[in-house]
């Protein structure tokens, strides 16, 4: 999972509102545009907010929704691409291992 080499964080200008744990509405304070996430997207978003890595989010999806690793990786990376394109998350390179 190549994206696991990056840290992805929720953009500070995004207001998120979870509805019944099944859907989430995102509002970007700069663009004033709404976005919605379904149940899977909501799950990924919550993990992102907890600071989980993309690899950890993928593993969590596999356990929660009983999907294989390839499917989970694809879902996470596709959503990250969408979120990043809309400015809803920011991706920064993960720092390398200490030492050396």
């Amino acid at each position: 999972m190549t994206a696991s080499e990056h840290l992805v964080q929720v953009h500070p200008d995004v207001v998120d509102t979870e509805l019944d744990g099944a859907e989430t509405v995102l509002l970007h304070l700069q663009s004033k545009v709404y976005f919605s996430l379904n149940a899977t997207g909501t799950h990924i978003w919550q993990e992102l907010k907890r600071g989980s890595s993309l690899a950890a989010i993928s593993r969590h999806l596999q356990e929660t929704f009983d999907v294989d690793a390839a499917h989970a990786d694809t879902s996470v990376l596709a959503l990250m691409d969408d979120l990043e394109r809309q400015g809803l998350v920011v991706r920064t390179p993960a720092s390398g291992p200490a030492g050396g």
Partner: protein
Amino acid sequence: MRRILMELTDRCNLRCRHCFQQRHAGNGDLPLGIIEGVLRDAAACSVNHVSFTGGEPTLHREFVRILDLCVEANCSFSFVSNGSTFRRVYRSLLARRQWFSGVTFSVDGAREATHDQLRGEGSYRQVLRAASICNFTGLPFTLNMVLTRENRMEMDALVDLAVSLGSGGVRFGFLMPGDGVDTAALALTLSERRVVESEVRRLQQMAEIPVVMAPGYYSESPFFPCGPLELEELNIDWRGRLTLCCQVSGYWSEAQRPDVIANLHDMSLVDADAMFRRRVATYLADKRNRLDRGEFRDADHFPCAYCVDYLGTTHQLSFYRSPDIPGRM
């Protein structure tokens, strides 16, 4: 048909700088028994709509029960809110959608920093979360801004924000002076209000959504459009009293309160409404007399200023009269 403005509680979970100090320490809810009695008499008083105010009306401990009482009384309902509790109540509104005509969210800055400076840190995001819920679920909402020195430059931006959020409209209103209100820092002078009003008229021409002014703006006619004075609106405060209007409710200390007309703990809404009609008739006759005597001054063209002056002289009247502080002409 007529409407009731019902102050459900004086409790609020925010500490806004432009709100009355007693609200900051509020601890009272309008008793459910009073609400039941009022709604029982609603039809007899030609009332078919109830608008809940506060404090933060959703903090009333029986808020959902009160919505049901409205439905049982065949009254539609709406309310004003700071949005902080909306995630807790929106399902109750969806379940009664047919009777719910909309919520007005208080947004006192188009920018987060401006709003939070007036209403407290984090409150901007809270109210935008509430707007998000409305947009996503189809619940109607509008935005209301109390105009102050700190946000008057953001009127255009607020209308843009409202359009982006899916708001059904924007209402601008003026700050009411009173105990605990940071009047010197926040209130516009009466002449500044005139300028701001022309800005609102410009926005009304340009905006994609309705833009309105709350009562209190300058009126050429001494007999300005006013819900209570046209007998279209009854205002009930959280103590269970029928008062002249909601704009000046909370303006005076409890020891003064010249705006109180009847106590609904002691009489029915029907009887209180009869007293209200007589009080309005006296008010209008007094105003005609004042006009005939040539005593109607320029500041009196601001309806709330006129009423504050007419109903009782207090130290706060200086807001409208002193040349040294905001509010002067």
